[in-house]
């Protein structure tokens, strides 16, 4: 069984930390209420109509008074395009930097469309072709020879034969030759089994949701043949500063508890500053929209902002006075921004000198960052 680093899930994750139930179990009541209220046409084998799937993800109130909680907070358009893609039986590719809720969205889409989010292939550098096509039960293979009984179907193969939604996580981490075994499945909707001279044909309702990180370096780019089989939806980073500060504070609080770090007041000035710096460098323009800045080579995702604040908090707790101060986050920030020692250092210095220095209430922050940058 291959294991890979699971990307940080979105902050909207349910509170249950360990042994978290699948989406279709956790939100069974909402799905049932939606199914009852849903009178619109459903595509073959879909549990809900596209409209109801979108409502499930975006939240809303039903005629019978049931309140559907929003699973995804972000542009409505994104979810509508994603659901419609699945309805036109095109495969869906969710792209985004870490921390943009790709996995979360894919799980809930599968749960709402097929009532089952467990047909999952986790992509890693070592994912074999068997994980996507099929494997063999070697004891039976030796005993009986090639037969349907000796064949171990992959989640994708099961989804095809049952007309459900399969999920592939971190598609770009899978080696290119293994990725390409998806081409036949997606274009011909069939999976040949040459050993048996048979094939598995996809039943109506089969579809595939893949997620991938578009800013990571060193990934296996999708071949254009495979790329063509997907409709691509890019999940954006949090739209506003407040939203992102909120996500970071919440996640830092959760992580801090498990590391037994002191609690930070939500929306503390340092968190706000770190998030502001991340956003400004990422967007290439200052928050007031007046000055442009260069963007460094790193992805500066929300997940990284969370780790900068958490490590700053650990520094403050173990070596400082327990209060998060500019000096505690400065070195972490430098590490997050300066990935390429030559180019990014310039970017960071320019940013410090042309933006941070002129902010009146950022003086101590500016000093700490300069000190960190000089050592």
């Amino acid at each position, binding site marked *: 069984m291959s294991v890979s680093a699971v990307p940080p899930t979105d902050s909207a994750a349910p509170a249950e930390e360990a042994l978290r139930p699948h989406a279709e179990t956790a939100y069974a009541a909402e799905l049932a209420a939606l199914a009852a209220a849903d009178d619109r046409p459903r595509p073959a084998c879909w549990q809900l109509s596209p409209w109801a799937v979108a409502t499930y993800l975006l939240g809303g109130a039903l005629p019978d008074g049931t309140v559907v909680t929003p699973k995804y907070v972000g542009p409505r358009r994104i979810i509508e395009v994603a659901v419609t893609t699945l309805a036109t039986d095109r495969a869906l590719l969710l792209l985004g930097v870490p921390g943009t809720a790709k996995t979360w969205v894919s799980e809930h889409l599968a749960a709402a469309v097929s009532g089952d989010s467990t047909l999952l292939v986790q992509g890693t550098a070592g994912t074999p072709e068997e994980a996507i096509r099929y494997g063999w039960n070697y004891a039976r293979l030796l005993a009986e020879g090639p037969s349907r009984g000796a064949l171990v179907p992959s989640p994708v193969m099961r989804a095809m034969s049952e007309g459900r939604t399969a999920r592939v996580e971190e598609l770009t981490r899978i080696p290119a030759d293994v990725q390409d075994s998806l081409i036949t499945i997606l274009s011909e909707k069939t999976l040949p089994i040459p050993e048996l001279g048979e094939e598995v044909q996809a039943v109506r309702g089969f579809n595939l949701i893949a997620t991938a990180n578009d800013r990571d370096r060193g990934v296996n780019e999708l071949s254009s043949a495979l790329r063509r089989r997907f409709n691509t939806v890019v999940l954006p980073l949090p739209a506003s500063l407040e939203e992102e500060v909120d996500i970071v504070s919440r996640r830092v609080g959760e992580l801090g508890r498990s590391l037994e770090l002191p609690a930070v007041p939500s929306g503390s000035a340092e968190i706000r500053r770190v998030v502001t710096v991340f956003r400004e460098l990422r967007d290439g323009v200052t928050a007031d929209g007046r000055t442009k800045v*260069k963007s460094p080579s790193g992805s500066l995702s929300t997940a990284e902002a969370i780790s900068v604040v958490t490590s700053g908090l650990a520094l403050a707790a173990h070596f400082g006075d327990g209060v998060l101060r500019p000096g505690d986050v400065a070195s972490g920030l430098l590490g997050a921004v300066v990935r390429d020692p030559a180019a990014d250092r310039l970017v960071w210095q320019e940013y410090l000198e042309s933006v941070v220095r002129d902010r009146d209430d950022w003086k101590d922050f500016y000093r700490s960052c300069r000190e960190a940058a000089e050592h």
Partner: protein
Amino acid sequence: MAAALAQYRPDTVLIEGPPEADGLLALAAHQDMGPPVALLAYVVDNPAQAAFWPFAAFSPEWVALRHALDHDVPVRFIDLPAAHTFVHEHEEEPEGPGIDPIAELARTAGHDDPEQWWDDVVEHQLVGDGDALAPFRTIADAMAELRPPGSEPSGGREARREAWMRRQIRAAERAGHRRIAVVCGAWHVPALAGRPSVASDDALLKGLPKVKVELTWVPWTHRRLSQHTGYGAGIASPGWYQHLFESADRGTVRWMTKVAALLRAEDHSVSSAHVIEAVRLAETLAAMRGRPLPGLAESTDAVRAVMCEGSDVPLALVQDRMVVGDRMGRVPDEAPTVPLQRDLTRLQRSLRLKPEPAERELDLDLRKDTDAARSRLLHRLTLLDVPWGSAATSRTGSTGTFRESWRLLWEPELAIKVAEAGIWGTTVESAATSRARDLAAHSGSLGEVTALAEACLLADLPDALPTVLQALADRAALDADVAHLAEALPALVRSLRYGDVRGTDAAALRELAEGLAVRICIGLPPACNSLDAEGAGAMAGHLGSTHAAVALLTDADELHQRWSATLRTLAERDTIAGLLRGRAARLLLDDNQWDAAEAARQMRLTLNPVTPPAEAAGWIEGFLAGGGMLLVHDTRLLGLVDDWLTSVPDAAFPDVLPLLRRTFSGFDPGVRRTIADRVRAGTDTPATPDRPGFAPTLDRTRAATARRTAAVLLGINHAPPGARGSAE
């Protein structure tokens, strides 16, 4: 609109627009006329006061106009004459109804996007072949609901316009027309349908002041139609509407095919399968959103997800080229001349600059008002791409900053260029301002924008400057090449020194220049690493020009310190080419940041057998580039150079020779001779340890000569040379 007119068969068409244009309407049917075009009205005495009525091919007014002309139906404009509206412009009245009626209706219907609601409820309903007039009736009813009688104050601009329109409708009825089609904003319908008494209208329109106006057709662009400010029509997606207007059927399919063709032309691989999937996605999306047909939002979402792989970069291209579109209108030659030409003629007369087909030279003294105005005019025309004058070197050879020389040549083609420039504005100044703004928005490199900023200053266009400076700041922030920044800085500082900038602009310009200098300070040391001889030479030039520019920025102590620190880094870092280190050392010495002893120490560190000879020669070249007088006066430095030169191994000498020759040949012959004399005399004899380069005692005879000259320069009376001389 076309369907409604075809069904109604009007015997006269009245359109909301300036009635002065009636004489020009026939031109609309001219074969050389191609929308988008605009009717331009301007005050004859003051062309800067102008108004535009833009028309796209899909504008209802244009459709009605063409219908009338094609069917030989009389057509007239019935809005309040521009002659009156111009006088009233200073009243600062809110134009239009004050509320957005469509938004109001959409909100009532429970939609938050008015344009989308309009498309769904009105535009897409026209597709059927039912009663083409029905939508118009519905809208009229809706507007009547929004404007119950007596809900608005009488008087005011809107009331006067409606009164005038009613008067024109009555006139048409009196003329015996029975089937009158009035094309106007839906908002006006209730006011025009209801008939207050003739007397009350007359009262409203009585004694309106007027000015003399003229009108003409000018070509327009889709891009300008989409602008919400200025004279744009505020149509966000003219290209999309043009497409809907032109394509008879299967609008989504045609649109996707066009998008695919555009993306292919830009090297994106887009296959027919992509088009098919995009159309399917758009249609399903529309169905899910409960819309009758895919609108622009659905099409854009589908293009992004299927053809652009989720990326907004190619999508921006689609947005720019197709949704807005770069269609440019055409106007027949018979259209009256544009006001820009009139303004130019007026300026040419008042400045006594005749457009002559023979080349002639013109020397301007910018201290004189007329000459300054002439210079501004020529600079502005250059900005407008009307190259009447080109900068020339003065025949008299005077080079003061208040002098400018031009070579003037008026070629007939320039008249066409003026007509083309008419799209930018009605006067030379306003046109040059808009053109400069547009150039700032579309120029690529930092150098271009810097040149543009300088041009704006020379052409005295203060209104364009903020936009240009913002563009400059943006380019500077994103430009990773220090050389570009260094090229931009001197021009900026020059502009600042030129003192032609007014009030707040000077502060903005200053801030910009200082910001640029700080960026150079940060970026210069890494950029100077590991350069070859050619690169180092270019960078040495930048170093010098930046140094001069920074020195000219007064009251910036922090910046000066930072710059000195940067120079010190350059001078002391081993990995930097000798030429640059020498240059930096010299600049520090000239600036009194280093004293002679420190310079000598650095020279000793560099000029020794350990340093590769070519490197050392480069150092000397950089250090002495500012002139050789230093060696004449500081015998210690000369001694160091001399010692080093004698220690260069024979094998390396031929490599070093050209560099040294280049260095020393740049000196004045006198300096060269003096140095040679010093070397011949031996460098170490006369020098005193505390004052290198000075004799131990004062040479009174030579001092007296210098003293006399100084006295003349200072205007001091010629004091008798005496014993006090040495004390002074």
